[in-house]
């Protein structure tokens, strides 16, 4: 009992109350207490700006993988107003023109749920795509919430490379590109679209049947500028088909 308690050991509450009553003028003589209180209030003021936004989101990130036939990817971000006051969503903005984000309405009463519908027009995009949507509410006009739509657009065919270039005056050498099936899709047939451009001769050969083919191309002449393309049609084992196009230049 003689040893003083460690400084962090809280005393019983009744004792504390008594001391507070007794020591009302005391804080003036203990500036550190006020300083810690001021710092606490300062921090407490800032805390709500990051963790306690009134709109509570079910998820802020949606991951999707599109099917070959799909032209758009859609994702709905659900939220609920978990605060005690009506929230107005003042702005919803997507990171690119290819994505639209729409709201049914802008004002949400306490407890009311809503959703932001996002539509990402795929265009000719392939691979991993990430589009963000910024949401601003009247609760904190300077802060915004970012929603992420992560879309994987499978690339059905890979070219290595898709462009073959000869320099003007080059020898009439042949160049090769390899067309391969991406992911697990098997190629059933691959055929060059006829007629071939008269400026080149071309030959398609399997490297690994069903998976990989090589296209061997030779220009008829390299004495002048040329800009032509070869097209082919690939049919996969699941009966879907895909056009392919290879560009040939003499420069």
């Amino acid at each position, binding site marked *: 009992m003689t040893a003083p308690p460690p400084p*962090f050991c809280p005393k019983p509450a009744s*004792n504390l109350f008594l001391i507070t009553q007794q*020591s009302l003028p*005391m804080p003036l003589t203990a500036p550190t*207490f006020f300083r*810690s209180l001021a*710092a606490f209030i300062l*921090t407490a003021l*800032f805390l709500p700006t990051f963790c306690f936004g009134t709109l509570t989101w079910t998820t802020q990130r949606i991951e999707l993988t599109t099917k070959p036939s799909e032209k758009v990817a859609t994702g709905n971000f659900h939220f609920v107003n978990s605060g005690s006051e009506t929230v107005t969503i003042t702005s919803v903005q997507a990171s690119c023109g290819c994505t639209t984000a729409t709201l049914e309405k802008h004002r949400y009463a306490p407890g009311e749920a809503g959703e932001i519908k996002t539509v990402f027009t795929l265009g000719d995009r392939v691979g991993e795509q990430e589009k963000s949507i910024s949401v601003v509410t009247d609760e904190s006009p300077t*802060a915004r919430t970012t929603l992420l739509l992560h879309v994987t657009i499978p690339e059905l065919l890979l070219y290595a490379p898709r462009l073959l270039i000869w320099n003007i005056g080059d020898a009439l050498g042949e160049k090769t590109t390899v067309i391969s099936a991406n992911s697990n899709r098997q190629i059933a047939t691959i055929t060059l679209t006829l007629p071939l451009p008269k400026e080149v001769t071309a030959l398609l050969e399997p490297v690994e049947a069903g998976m990989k083919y090589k296209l061997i191309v030779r220009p008829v002449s390299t004495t002048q500028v040329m800009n032509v393309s070869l097209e082919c049609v690939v049919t996969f084992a699941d009966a879907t088909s895909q056009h392919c196009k290879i560009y040939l230049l003499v420069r």
Partner: protein
Amino acid sequence: MAAIQPMKTIALWICRLLLGGTFAYAAVQKIAEPTAFATDIEHFRLLPHPLTLALALYLPWLELFCSAAVLARKYEPSALLLIALMCGVFFIALTSAWCRDLDINCGCFGHSNATSALPWAIARSLALGLLALLLFKQSPSVSSQ
């Protein structure tokens, strides 16, 4: 002076919980998504690429260890000093981003809670840094000097 001690103790504990809790929360968010955090650091355009990757892996763990040290009161003055130092670095980075008019996420609490308002983040880093310094000055081994 002795009479004010319990109030002060409670206030200090609240500050400690606030600081430790905030840093622990921030750390866990970033530990979960190191790649996203690396991208956020990259957007500040202050560090060369390999350093941003290293920092994205290291910083959240340092935050976590420091917050744990503050809450457990082990190595407390050092942890508070490191937190104050980190807040100083955050303050400089955020202010420079704000001055350069960069439209970026703070990255402070990981990418998923990407709420971005640089002035708020700057004020927050300043407040947390001051809080850490204040607690540092109050820690027994320092005040007994």
